[in-house]
């Protein structure tokens, strides 16, 4: 498998611990795109990923721990939204110079695995509108094909959080962005939230959409001959919904 690179490793832990006190683990492969944000490789994040990667992890734990990672992705993604300065008075009567959120948002999940990220999104953004896009691989051409979409009518006026936990070749994510752009959403107002990506997928996606921001928890080593992410975590949708 020539397109699988060895994973970089690192001692992980708080700064006040010496290197010898910190355990070593495989961390995300780096990427060269400014638009791509990889979550800080904290020991806690690596531990969460270790749980959902483990093939012996049961569905209940898979759901719980992947949800924790997704919440961290959403929290990081929301930081890319605009804010304005805003001063309030606190309950103890002192002024507080803060920020207020600007711009309307909505979520769009790429079915089926992307829907697994909706709960995490809702835990951070109550009553958020969520559109859905169904893209499946056409059996004859082996190319992704749009089967269904249902999106908020005013989506062109909103910031869009596009949800898909796995980015392998990037085929369906690219198609989903094309759908959004056709509805009038400018590229720079789309945030793609992703749990696990392959370097190839990131490369394809970020090259195609240079203004679109990507937030991912981890860039893995590569793809196998069936285009599965390696070492990966299996089929996210199956593990979340049916296994």
């Amino acid at each position: 498998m020539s397109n699988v690179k060895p994973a970089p490793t690192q001692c992980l832990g708080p700064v006040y611990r010496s290197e010898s006190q910190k355990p070593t683990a495989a961390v995300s492969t780096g990427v060269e795109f400014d638009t791509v944000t990889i979550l800080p490789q904290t020991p806690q994040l690596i531990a969460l990923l270790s749980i959902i990667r483990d093939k012996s992890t049961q569905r209940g734990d898979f759901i719980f721990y992947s949800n924790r990672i997704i919440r961290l992705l959403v929290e990081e993604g929301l930081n890319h939204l605009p804010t304005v300065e805003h001063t309030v008075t606190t309950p103890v009567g002192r002024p507080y110079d803060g920020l207020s959120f600007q711009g309307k948002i909505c979520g769009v999940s790429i079915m089926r695995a992307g829907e697994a990220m909706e709960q995490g999104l809702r835990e951070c953004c109550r009553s958020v509108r969520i559109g859905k896009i169904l893209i499946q691989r056409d059996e004859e051409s082996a190319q992704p094909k749009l089967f269904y979409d249902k999106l908020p009518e005013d989506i062109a006026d909103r910031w869009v959080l596009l949800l898909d936990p796995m980015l392998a070749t990037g085929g369906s994510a690219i198609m989903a962005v094309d759908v959004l752009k056709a509805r009038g959403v400018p590229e720079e107002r789309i945030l793609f939230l992703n749990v696990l990506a392959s370097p190839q997928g990131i490369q394809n996606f970020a090259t195609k959409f240079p203004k679109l921001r990507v937030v991912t928890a981890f860039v893995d080593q590569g793809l196998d001959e069936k285009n599965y992410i390696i070492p990966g975590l299996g089929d996210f949708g199956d593990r979340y919904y049916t296994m």
Partner: protein
Amino acid sequence: MPSSMAADSRTPVNGAASETDGTIATRAHYAPPWADVSIIGIAGSSGSGKSTLSHAIVNKLNLPWVVILSMDSFYKSLDEESSRKAFRSEYDFDAPDAIDFDVLVDRLRDLKAGKRAEIPVYSFEKHARLERTTSIYSPHVLILEGIFALYDPRVLDLLDMKIFCEADGDTCLSRRILRDQRDRGRDIEGIIKQWFAFVKPNFEKYVDPQRKVADIIVPRGVENHVAMSMVVQFIQQKLLEKSTHHRAALTRLELEVQSERLSPRVTIMNQTSQMQGMNTIIHDIDTSSEDFIFYFDRLSALLVEQALNNIPFVPVEITTPQACTYAGLRPRGEVSAVIVLRGGATLEAGLHRCITDCKTGRMLIQSNVRTGEPELHYLVLPPDIHRHEAVLLLDAQMSSGGSALMAVQVLVDHGVRVDRIVLVTYSAGRMGLHRLTKVFPDISVVVGQVVPDIEERWVEKKYFRC
């Protein structure tokens, strides 16, 4: 009265803190208030009104955490022969020999050092110590009452005040008959036999001479209101002195550290735009309760996620469904939490979003309205907490650091290593952070935001809506 405020007199609980031993020299000096319990000894003849006086003092003092310790708990267990004698009312319970002074002194010393003490439970029906013990933990005032409360010189050294109760002999005998019949299941004949065989001669030989070492002799027990007020006033004065000392020690800590940088073990949350936006909503007096709770829960989950980066991990090799291996991490052992009530309970929703089944201890620490000093009112911890790899200590706000210092010390007293404690708090003042990390340099702290100075506890008011 000399003050026994010895700043570094505390020693770690057995096996608790070998790691902290090495750092004691560099630690700032701080004696938590309960490390300096006031012990009052009340001696006097059987039936002279010692326990009535003790209860009256408790009522008059009207303080939380006043404990009465009866010396009856320290009767020696009887061997078979003595036990037979005891059942025939021929055993001398009223001689100093019947009391296990060694155990008593040990327990009093533990309490004086601010440690938990296991008090034996004695059964008068069985004339033996029971298996179970009663735990006493860090009282403000301890009243030791018993006919020989002022007998052992080692006990006398530990007492802050020595009281001797005096009563007329006939009064004593009649009270004794009533009590032993009612509470100890004895018959009148046995009681009277004991009185003349043991109680009276022992009184003259051992009990009465204790009046020579007493600070105050109280005639006529509880009916003596003047003596009662004197005793209560004295104790109050003593507590005020100690509290002044305690707060002076806190101020000293503050002066020592004002100019220094925060410890590297203090993590202040990155002030991202979301964090600032959430903080703004939380701080806005006009925010609805629904929004306040929603954003506070969201933020507290992030605090807990950050705190969990401070727990110990070990490498683990994972096999993925693709049959590949991944060099990951897993927590080294159990992580539990302790909520400092009431404020800490605001972080519980966030805690459970990260660890659904987290074992959770609770302690109620309240600042004394009069002195501003923290007081421990309630404590329940997971029994195996000293074996947990990490303990998250949750509180909503920290200003002077007084209650956080107390909470950490309580955990240390229960065998939790300081380097395993992660204090998680929504906001903290620099002063409090300095104090805490100066006293406990090995503690990790995760703070949502650093606020300039002392602030009242408004977060819990808003979160719980009262």
